[in-house]
């Protein structure tokens, strides 16, 4: 789960990282009031969970409260990468001297947190990693010991930070690591961390991602989820205990298990070629009971691009005859004319096949292998089945 910039910066501030004293506005009038309170030139920043806000015109300077109101009026309601801007952050404009980068994330290969610093602030770290890999200095952190002072100094000297800033930098690095740990973050990043012309270090922009698996103990953060930023099918899927990702193809996929679900998608693409592919990733988990299948079917059918549906279930502990009955019951609850291809494998697959075939539903087809199922789903999506 990603936090907005303003949410991340409130969190940073709480853990002692210096941040601009900005506020969030949802209307141009509020933007005017906030700018007047701040009393200096402000920067109006679109709050959407997407990168490239600046390029899209979602970040603008305003010298007066009137200008802030006008700019906010332009930005609110604007779409950036498909997401509607519903909030703007009004920050006092900083007198920027130097911009650096400081972030902490999980290094999955090392199994440890890693703190990264770079003199190339204000640029996406992936871009720096690609263009100037040597510009990024990394320190792996012992999760029990935490960040050591010397590691912060290694980072500071590694990016050639002038010595007079080391003390402030070290404090920010410690506080950022604490923010990361205390928030169950998978990413906590200050970009840019600015050294103002007055010689102050301040976190001008911030980004945090929170581990979805830890939200049970991060209840305050869990409530910050921006449901406007998510398609409603994703919200429905989460409520039904399904894992769903919408894609842009035509074949709806319903599969048990994440690896098999990805494989099923890959097969529709393999046989579908350039123009036909998976409409979604969907893992219904173990069991495949009728209520879950029905919930999954509703979500798949809400996608207008879907032209055929592929059920691919491996019955391990679950028996395929139970799965087949679940599918039929779900179809009676959620009727659809779309061609559907069912492929069952594993425990009691033969019985499952008989149940599907004996149901004599004209738009329900059976396939013995994954290859055959994918080919049939592709043909159906092309209207050739």
């Amino acid at each position, binding site marked *: 789960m990603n936090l907005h910039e303003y949410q991340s910066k409130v969190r940073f501030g709480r853990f002692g990282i210096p941040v601009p004293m900005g506020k969030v506005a949802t209307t141009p009038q509020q933007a005017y009031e906030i700018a007047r309170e701040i009393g200096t030139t402000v920067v109006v920043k679109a709050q959407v969970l997407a990168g490239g806000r600046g390029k899209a015109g979602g970040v603008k300077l305003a010298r007066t409260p009137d200008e802030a109101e006008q700019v906010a009026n332009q930005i609110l309601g604007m779409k950036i990468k498909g997401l509607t801007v519903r909030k703007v952050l009004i920050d006092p404009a900083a007198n920027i001297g130097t911009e650096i980068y400081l972030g902490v994330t999980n290094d999955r290969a090392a199994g*440890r947190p890693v703190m990264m610093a770079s003199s190339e602030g204000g640029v996406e770290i992936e871009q720096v990693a690609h263009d100037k890999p040597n510009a990024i200095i990394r320190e792996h952190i012992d999760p029990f010991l935490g960040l050591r002072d010397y590691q912060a100094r290694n980072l500071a000297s590694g990016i050639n930070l002038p010595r007079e800033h080391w003390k402030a930098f070290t404090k920010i690095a410690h506080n950022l690591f604490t923010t990361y740990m205390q928030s169950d973050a998978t990413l906590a990043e200050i970009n840019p961390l600015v050294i103002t012309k007055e010689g102050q270090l301040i976190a001008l922009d911030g980004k945090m991602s929170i581990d979805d698996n830890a939200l049970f103990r991060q209840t305050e953060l869990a409530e910050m989820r921006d449901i406007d930023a998510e398609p409603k099918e994703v919200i429905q899927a989460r409520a039904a205990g399904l894992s769903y990702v919408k894609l842009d193809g035509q074949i709806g996929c319903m599969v048990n298990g994440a690896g098999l679900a990805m494989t099923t998608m890959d097969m529709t693409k393999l046989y579908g070629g350039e123009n036909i592919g998976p409409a979604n990733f969907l893992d219904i988990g173990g069991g495949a009971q009728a209520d879950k299948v029905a919930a999954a079917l509703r979500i798949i059918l809400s996608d207008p691009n879907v032209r055929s549906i592929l059920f691919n279930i491996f019955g391990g502990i679950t028996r395929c005859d139970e799965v087949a009955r679940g599918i039929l019951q779900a179809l009676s609850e959620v009727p659809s004319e779309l061609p559907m291809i069912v492929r069952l494998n594993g425990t009691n697959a033969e019985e499952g096949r008989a149940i599907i075939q004996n149901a004599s539903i004209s738009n329900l087809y059976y396939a013995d292998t994954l290859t055959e199922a994918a080919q049939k789903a592709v043909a159906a999506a092309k209207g050739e089945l």
Partner: protein
Amino acid sequence: MAILADKNTRLLVQGITGREGNFHSQQMLEYGTNIVGGVTPGKGGEWALGKPVFDTVKAAVEATEANATIIYVAAAFAADALFEAIDAEIPLIVCITEGIPILDMMKVYDYLKHSKSRLVGPNCPGLLTPGQAKVGIMPGYIAKPGSVGVVSKSGTLTYEVVYALSQADLGQSTCIGIGGDPVIGTTFVDVLQMFEDDPQTEKIVLIGEIGGRAELDAAEFIQNHMSKPVAGFIAGRSAPEGTTMGHAGAIVEGGAGTADEKIEALRAAGVRIADNPEQIPALLR
């Protein structure tokens, strides 16, 4: 032979009285696994499936001389169960639990490095040595004894492949699911080394997916250290960048961890890669 689990495995079940733990313990017993006891704090002295239940792992190990444990404890409490098993110096720990916070796992990972234990998982189906022991949730009947070692990040996809191998009369030495989380105890490279050293294993199947670089490390290891032939499949060629696909670790980030880059590296190391998992038995011939 085989690896990690066999008929000498003396297994504890942490969470034996829970719904999942109890169901799968029954299945493991039916397969012939030697379960010696279970652990559920607060239920010490009771019995489950005819096996003694203990309050602590330490007491269970002292009483039963268990040499392996399997964890079905809920995600919020799984890290504690893992630390308890590590502190009891159990050589093999298999963790089935899905959804453990990554910060918890990074601490467990660090703790493991200074311990006598090996962890398989979490978020994995466990392992199965056909005809000897099932330590996990794989459906036992799909496998049969033989000489193919199977290692995978996945669950049902692994079952598909194992089932297809058995249908083609290619039995397995051990099937092992290492899990789909970003931080796991046992990697592809660890298992490849064990299969290379295991006299029963003649050929290997590796099933990977998008995200991370474990498959790239595997390719390098195969290139430099393996004599046995490897076939494989990588799931997620059609997955978009920047989105987690079910498994917490299955995500392409910043253009890294794609299926294509892994397939290319494995092919360069001499691994036969299937476009379709149904081709795998043919690739082993």
